[in-house]
């Protein structure tokens, strides 16, 4: 079955009882049991809810994993996966990781004895050089946020496999439509489903998919114990979003290609980061592991002053955090998505005040380009 068909027919899209073609929103917090020694498939909605189950099964199917898990936010998904580790464990993380992920590692999990080393994931030697005896996982984002750096997932998965440790990837920017990391050998896939999967800026949600039954059991235990689960209404909205994933992603990247070409040719734009551009350093690897460049374009306009001018003058995109929605969103990583990162670390990885991140929506690309043109001036 083609992926575009699969997103509509994961096998979890019809209510088994009534035949309803949209899964019902089960609000029940608890489920009546038949007998004292005969428990049904559901007992308490934190532990399992039919609406959330349908979403979890769908994302597992789309990513090609053994089990999916839905959480209250992308950060709740990421935090719950970090809870797989214990005091004394070490994780290697790509240096230009999402600011929120950096924040929980450096100001929360560190207090409980989990250590993280951040390094450049475009270079496998850098990853190998920071591995330790107590390293338990390698954590990647590709393309990275906001500089769209590409990590070779097969190579990362290989390093992890050789060491017997876990490989984890945040696949938010790509979605399983464009990139299926499990097929490339990765062990755990994470999503802020708030972004492309939900796709409408109307829900906060996180997803995780795992490939190993033992890890699935551990994560199920954490999801239930830690309780950062996604509610039924939000689970339903994410499923609704996924139905149009292919159509949206195609339009997102079509717009992003045009916008990136326009920016690349603009004299006031100093640099454009988009894996669809021929000169992008990670293009070859990206094309080998993903089905398209995605819909995020970052660019530099020379100075903080110029960046602010653009942000102030654009009319179509919403000046807002988040990304991956039908509406275009323009954001300023230094004070928005990467505010949680230490300023020195931001500077080191290139998240500087002249950088703008553009999440290309489904508006007509010509309108978006005309708007950017007047804003850049």
């Amino acid at each position, binding site marked *: 079955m083609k992926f575009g068909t699969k997103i509509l027919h994961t096998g979890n899209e019809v209510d088994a009882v009534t035949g309803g073609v949209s899964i019902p929103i089960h*609000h*029940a*917090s*608890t*489920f*009546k*049991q*038949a*007998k*004292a*020694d005969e428990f049904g498939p559901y*007992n*308490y*909605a*934190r532990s399992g*809810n039919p609406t959330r189950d349908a979403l979890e099964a769908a994302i597992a199917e789309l990513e090609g994993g053994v089990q999916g898990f839905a*959480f*209250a*936010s*992308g*950060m*709740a998904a*990421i*935090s719950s996966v970090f*809870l797989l580790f*214990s*005091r004394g464990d070490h994780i290697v993380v790509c240096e230009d990781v999402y600011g*929120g992920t950096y*924040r*929980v590692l450096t*100001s*929360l999990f560190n207090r*409980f004895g*989990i250590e993280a080393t951040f390094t450049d994931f475009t270079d496998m030697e850098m990853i190998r050089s920071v591995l330790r005896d107590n390293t338990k996982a390698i954590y990647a984002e590709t393309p990275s946020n906001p500089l769209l750096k590409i990590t070779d997932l097969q190579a990362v998965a290989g390093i992890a496999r050789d060491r017997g440790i876990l490989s984890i990837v945040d696949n938010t920017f790509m979605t399983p439509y464009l990139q299926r990391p499990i097929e490339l050998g990765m062990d755990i896939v994470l999503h802020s489903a*708030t972004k492309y999967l*939900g796709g409408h800026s*109307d*829900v*906060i949600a996180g997803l995780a998919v795992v490939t190993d039954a033992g890890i699935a059991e551990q994560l199920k235990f954490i999801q*239930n*114990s*830690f*309780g*950062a*689960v*996604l*509610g039924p*209404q*939000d689970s339903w909205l994410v499923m609704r979003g996924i139905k149009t994933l292919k159509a949206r992603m195609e339009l997102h990247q079509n717009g992003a290609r045009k916008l990136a070409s326009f920016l690349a040719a603009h004299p006031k734009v100093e640099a454009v980061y988009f894996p669809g551009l021929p000169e992008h350093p990670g293009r070859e690897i990206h094309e080998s592991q993903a089905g398209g460049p995605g819909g995020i374009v970052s660019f530099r306009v020379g100075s903080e002053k110029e960046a*602010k001018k653009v942000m*102030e003058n654009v009319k179509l995109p*919403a*000046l*807002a*955090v*988040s990304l991956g*929605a039908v509406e275009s*969103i323009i954001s300023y990583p230094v004070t*928005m998505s990467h505010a*949680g990162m230490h300023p020195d670390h931001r500077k080191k990885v290139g998240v500087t005040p002249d950088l703008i991140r553009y999440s290309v929506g489904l508006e007509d690309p010509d309108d978006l380009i005309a708007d950017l043109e007047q804003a850049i001036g």
Partner: protein
Amino acid sequence: MKTSTKAVQLGVGTDPTGAISVPVYQTAAFRHPAFGESTGYDYSRSGNPTRQALEEGIAKLDGGIRGFAYASGMAALANIFLLFKAGDHLVVTEDLYGGTFRLLDKVFCGYGLTVTYVDTSDLGQVSMAVTDNTRAILVETPTNPLLKVADIPGISRLAKDSGLLFIVDNTFMTPYLQRPLLLGADIVIYSATKYLAGHNDLVAGLVVVKDQELAEKVYFLQNSVGAVLGPQDSWLAIRGIKTLGIRLDRQEENSRYIAGWLSAHPAVKKVYYPGLPDHPGHSLQMEQAEGFGAMISFELAGRAAAEQVINRVGLISFAESLGGVESLITFPSFQTHADMDQAERERMGINDRLLRLSVGIEDVSDLLADLEQALEGGKVTL
């Protein structure tokens, strides 16, 4: 203003349109009016107007300065445990909700958090358990499922003297019946799934604090870990809280009848309900709370008798959870407290003869009739 009035008025007057019911803000992000400006909302994980109405409402009800809403009661508790660090020690009620026990015993112990479980209805045991690295005391009162009552002002003095955080899980009482922050506690926690929402129709957790510095730490964790409550569920929780007073009045009235009736029933060996005059925490409960709540645990002669009741109840649903308008019955040793060590459970009295009843708002005569036929072994009705 009375708590029941505050509860009904939750969220009223907060929306600029004048809408009496707070709108469901089903949005992930908020457009900034201009560069460097914000409406006060950026991203719904960090703050959402519907969730905020709930958070401000619960803070008002509990007499705190700030409230926090989470994806579940366990997510709320987990967020509070994340205030601590490896090497810290907590003193915790021994017969507390099994999920809290599991979280501490199976998740946080892996991060170097140590816990001593004591009978918190005995102030001496609490005091004895405090060590140099103790950072907090966590109490459930009345406890789940044995309804033991802890002395909130007494423990709060002990906590203050030793510089410890005092955390109370107030799920069984709600601010309508008990306001721990006003009795000296620092943090109050709820599974809002239970009485606050009250309709067995959502999973949610709440936290309230009364200190600004602590509020900022909790907010940092809420936003960083992101185990937040969605807008639809926040709205449902608000909707539930509006009827908190009338629901609990009726639930408690029913419970008093049922507890008395169970006490007189020959098949029932023991009844745990703080409203019974012979309950050891009865007078303390009257001092620190405005009621006894609607949870009753009772012990039968053996496991077979307990199973018979579970299998024969008709009106009362055999299901986990509690606090809703519909009555529920559970088997704590196999459900809510299954994660505890069996010997420990037995020692405390959480045995395979014990049942826990969450009394709903049905007519009490129907509930009594259902219990009667279940206990007597009469024919199954309904």
